[in-house]
């Protein structure tokens, strides 16, 4: 073959190897390649580093309530745009996106159900709906759920995941903190139990209202839980935050929560607690 000649190519038929899609995935936390089936059977936690991924509200229902026991409340309640809020996007467009992402009409799903065959009021927030933020609808749904628990004298469970109050409803959203805490003041007075389950992330106005008012506060491992977000704190104090700051383990250490329960044990723990309070 001449040294500078044009090489000749010929097409060779290669039999395509079938790689099943969705079989493997990369953990965004530990960057290991993990088996997707193992990931899902471990309730969306990394089988290697145990990182707890976000779960949708519906997945929470499946994870925690007795099968088929949910009687959803106020699922048709829709947000409005009381202030005609427009920033880089229209508030109404954010709703459309939220609905598409979460398959919910708002950032929380509420209803009556049972845990260990005992009736409970149950709420689960969904971070994929505008960051799980609390506007009028979230406030109203939580309040009605609390009122229903008062009515039926049952245990209340709320699973939180939220960036805080929803800016696009401004002072309306701020007042949802007052409204939900007010409803919980009645539950508290009536001697009814409220179990708050804080998941990654729970910050801002939700932490500063109903998330922090549980008689029992449970957190999932490694969840970011705080009043101000870490970025805001860093900008304010102009120094780096210590490792593990505002994570569940940090909160337990500082006496802010009762326990950290890994997701795979959460159902059992709630059953134990609900049974305790129902007898």
């Amino acid at each position, binding site marked *: 073959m001449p040294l500078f000649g044009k090489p000749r190519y010929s097409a060779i038929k290669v039999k395509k190897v079938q790689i099943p899609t969705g079989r493997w995935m990369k953990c965004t936390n530990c960057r290991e390649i993990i088996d997707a089936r193992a990931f899902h059977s471990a309730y969306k936690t990394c089988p290697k580093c145990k990182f707890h991924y976000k779960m949708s509200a519906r997945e929470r229902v499946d994870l925690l309530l007795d099968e088929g026991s949910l009687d959803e409340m106020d699922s048709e309640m829709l947000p409005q745009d009381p202030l005609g809020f427009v920033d880089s996007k229209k508030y109404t467009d954010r709703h459309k996106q939220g609905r598409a992402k979460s398959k919910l009409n708002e950032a929380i799903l509420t209803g009556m159900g049972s845990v260990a065959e005992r009736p409970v009021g149950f709420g689960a927030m969904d971070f994929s709906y505008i960051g799980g933020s609390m506007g009028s609808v979230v406030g109203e749904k939580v309040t009605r759920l609390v009122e229903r628990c008062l009515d039926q004298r049952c245990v209340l469970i709320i699973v939180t995941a939220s960036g805080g109050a929803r800016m696009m409803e401004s002072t309306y959203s701020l007042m949802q903190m007052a409204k939900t805490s007010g409803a919980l003041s009645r539950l508290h007075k009536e001697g009814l139990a409220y179990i708050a389950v804080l998941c990654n992330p729970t910050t*801002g106005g939700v932490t500063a209202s109903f998330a922090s008012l549980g008689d029992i506060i449970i957190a999932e491992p490694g969840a970011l839980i705080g009043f101000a977000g870490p970025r805001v704190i860093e900008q304010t104090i102009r120094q780096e935050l210590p490792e593990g700051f*505002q994570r569940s383990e940090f909160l337990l250490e500082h006496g802010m929560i009762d326990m950290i329960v890994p997701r795979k044990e959460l159902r059992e723990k709630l059953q134990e607690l609900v049974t305790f309070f129902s007898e």
Partner: protein
Amino acid sequence: MAGTALDFERPLIELEKKIEALKKSSESSGIDLSSQIVTLQRQLDSQRLKLYSKLTPWQRVQLARHPRRPYMLDLVRLITRSFTELHGDRLFGDDKAIVGGFAVIDEVKVMLVGHQKGRDTKENIMRNFGCPHPEGYRKALRLMKMAEKFKLPVISLIDTPGAYPGIGAEERGQARAIALNLREMMQLRTPMIIVITGEGCSGGALGVGIGDIVAMFQNAYYSVISPEGCAAILWKDAGKMELAAKALKLTANDLAEHKLIDDIIPEPIGGAHTNHAEMGTILKERLLSYLEKLKRIALDELLEKRYKKFRAMGVFTEPAPEEKRVPSPREEEAVPHLPEVSPLETKR
């Protein structure tokens, strides 16, 4: 004075200076300049009215933050006969960003709590710029519970850029401290009056902000987030605060329109900082009328009304047949609303 003036105040201050100079030269030279002075004075008055009758939301935010605005302790001096400050949360420390204590207004004994900002850098460091830590909210709660015990009405004066976002604040449970205040204030068996006198920013304000009457100074603002914070997040540019201030509907008039506050307390023309004494007189008069009004309501009824007021806040839609509260009307009114107060109505 010019050093602390806001940009939009400058033309007025220039005029004031001119008048002052004319007066002086007329005195020293003996030449009668009164006609020029009168003309300028008229010009000044009309400009002032024009400016302050249509302030933009951002201008009001600036007035709410004015470095010469009357702060909690200034107002306390102006409205009370006596004030005994009480310190500490009995748990960790004494937060100087929130002050409180027994006070007597005319003949009425009350418990006063509120945010305190500093007038200069040194004082601001001590007061943490009016940004409380958890111990501030816990001190406030301790004092409010004491008010309940001694059957004293609570008056809370709000003026804060927000609860402090810092390491210590998080370690000691900022969120829990605020949440607990919200829950407890809703059930406190004593009349509660809230007045937002300057900045009413976010949970840091609401943490001492649950009451039977929630009133706002005319140029105060009340919002879920500061305009700068909102602009930084939603516009990705903190410089867009004027837009954010407008979008957040944070002025007293906006909030009264949406029934999120009960009353607007007028300020002297030009803002509370131009005349502390007059502001004190107006505030005192209002507080006494609120106290009188709330005194007549039985405690059970008062608590029920307080709950229902906050219960009704929120706007949403539901499909029929359960169509209700869009926007939710308040079931019972604590006080009549003053939906619009223009600065023209205040006496000068």
